[in-house]
């Protein structure tokens, strides 16, 4: 028995130590640095308490990055979930070449977001403006990514294009757990398509809805590759996400401790948001 127990410890303790060393320890370090004035390369630094946090609250760039990130995350999460649920319903319906379409819709998920971003960059910068000029449509004739007001929409489009695939697969998995008999019974009772969706499909895939919303929100809040590939945070700082700001300020702006404080705040925001989402959505699951 003792040897049995020993084996279980040998199986887990190294993994625990490695995870602590490469994940938890850097996270704690990040929290510690956030209380100092270290710029990341100077040999000495001082403990300055919560000063970084105080400065953060009054920093317009930081505030701006939060606004952009939230705008992006909320809009992208809603669009992705609506579209991927619709696509999953379509792919679950009786259609010819179902496997072919399934394969097509999953394709974006295997592509690198960075490279997809480069491809869309060309689409927004060259193809659409040229077509816009040719057809005489003025709002298409300029690069949306160069427009301070609308660049974020371009990033949403790429984000949605790429991440719909994964959410669709999750919804499709959910739809396949619903037995056909339920629909047959409902249509015998005279329930139309909408009522079937409202009272059978949607309640039964509620757990998948929860998971999709939480995952999509968390991924979208961390948006990084898309921005780096398409705008680098510009024009101006219009599309600078929190992750991009922390990376750029922390590595090249000499704001190591300052951006660490920003990351700590970001952690608190994500954790709070996830809990609220889970609580809200799971309560909804049970009521349905």
């Amino acid at each position, binding site marked *: 028995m003792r040897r049995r127990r020993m084996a279980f410890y040998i*199986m887990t303790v190294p993994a625990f130590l*490695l995870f602590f060393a490469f994940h938890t320890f850097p996270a704690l370090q990040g929290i510690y640095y956030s209380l100092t004035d270290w710029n990341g390369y100077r040999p000495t630094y001082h403990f300055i308490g919560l000063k970084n946090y105080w400065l953060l609250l009054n920093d317009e760039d930081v505030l701006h990055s939060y606004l952009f990130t939230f705008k992006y995350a909320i809009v992208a999460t809603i669009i992705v979930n609506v579209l991927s649920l619709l696509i999953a319903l379509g792919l679950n319906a009786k259609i010819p070449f179902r*496997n072919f*379409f399934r394969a097509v819709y999953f394709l974006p998920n295997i592509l690198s977001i*960075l*490279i997809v971003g480069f491809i869309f960059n060309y689409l927004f910068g060259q193809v659409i403006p040229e*077509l816009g000029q040719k057809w005489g449509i003025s709002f298409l004739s300029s690069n949306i990514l160069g427009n301070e007001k609308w660049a974020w929409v371009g990033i949403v489009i790429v984000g949605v294009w790429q991440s719909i695939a994964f959410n669709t697969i999750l919804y499709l*998995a959910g739809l396949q757990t619903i037995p056909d008999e339920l629909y047959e019974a409902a249509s015998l009772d005279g329930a139309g398509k909408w009522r079937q969706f409202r009272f059978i499909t949607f309640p039964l895939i509620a757990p998948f809805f929860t998971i999709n919303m939480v995952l999509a929100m968390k991924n979208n809040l*961390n948006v990084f590759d898309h921005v780096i590939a398409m705008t680098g945070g510009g024009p101006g700082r219009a599309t600078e996400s929190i992750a991009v700001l922390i990376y750029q300020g922390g590595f090249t702006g000499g704001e190591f401790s300052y951006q660490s404080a920003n990351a700590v705040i970001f952690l608190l925001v994500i954790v709070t948001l996830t809990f609220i989402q889970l609580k809200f959505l799971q309560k909804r699951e049970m009521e349905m």
Partner: protein
Amino acid sequence: MKNRINWTATILIALGSLLILFPLYMAVVVALKNPVEMARSILSPPIHWHLENFTRAIAMTDFFQALANSAMITVIAVTFTLLTNSMVAYAIARNLNRRFFKFLYYYFISAMFIPFPLIMLPIVKETSALEMNHPLGLSLLYIVYGLSLNIFIYVGYIRSIPRELEEAAIMDGASTWSVFWKVIFPLLAPINATVGILTCLWTWNDFMLPLIVLNEPEMATLPLKQYIFQGQFSTDYNTAFASYLLALSPLVLIYLFAQRWIINGVTKGALK
């Protein structure tokens, strides 16, 4: 009624799939043309195939070196993720009634909520201090970071495996190790496929970790290489797109042959 084809759904799905395929069509077309042909018409199919775009891209980005780096990182990460993460999950799943293992379970899972930017800056210091800023060190990070999600996927699955299967082996005097490797690990095949596919997609396409951890151009992975050379491509779209296609092609080729299997693998993970 059951066997009637739903034409509304078919048309909408077909139209939607064009939106997926269009940017990819455009990428192929641009990669195969030259500037003269591009000026004539931006989206029409190429008249002559300018394959020299690809040879130029290969030379400029040192494609085969980057391919080798990406392949090595992915193969090592996937192999050791499957071998180690499943074992950790097994020990946790079979001891969830004991405090240490229960703690481990929640410890790994709750780490999923820590946003990467919080550890991004310190991990660079740590990996360079430990001289881990090379592809092998990067693979180790993927194996370790994967624990968070993988423990969640594996534990759910392992708990659905009846204990009786192991008890027979234990009665025969098998050690915990041989129970795991001979009884449990083979039974994990379907979920190993899920974890393997997700790990492969993640490590192959990841940009952020290679960006901050690797510091020599010859160590760069395929996505990182595209980023490094972005400046040099700035006006030469044809070479740039040839290079993008080359970087995307290995996974796309695998996907073409194994797509049904890959989609099923991902779905299985979702259902658990």
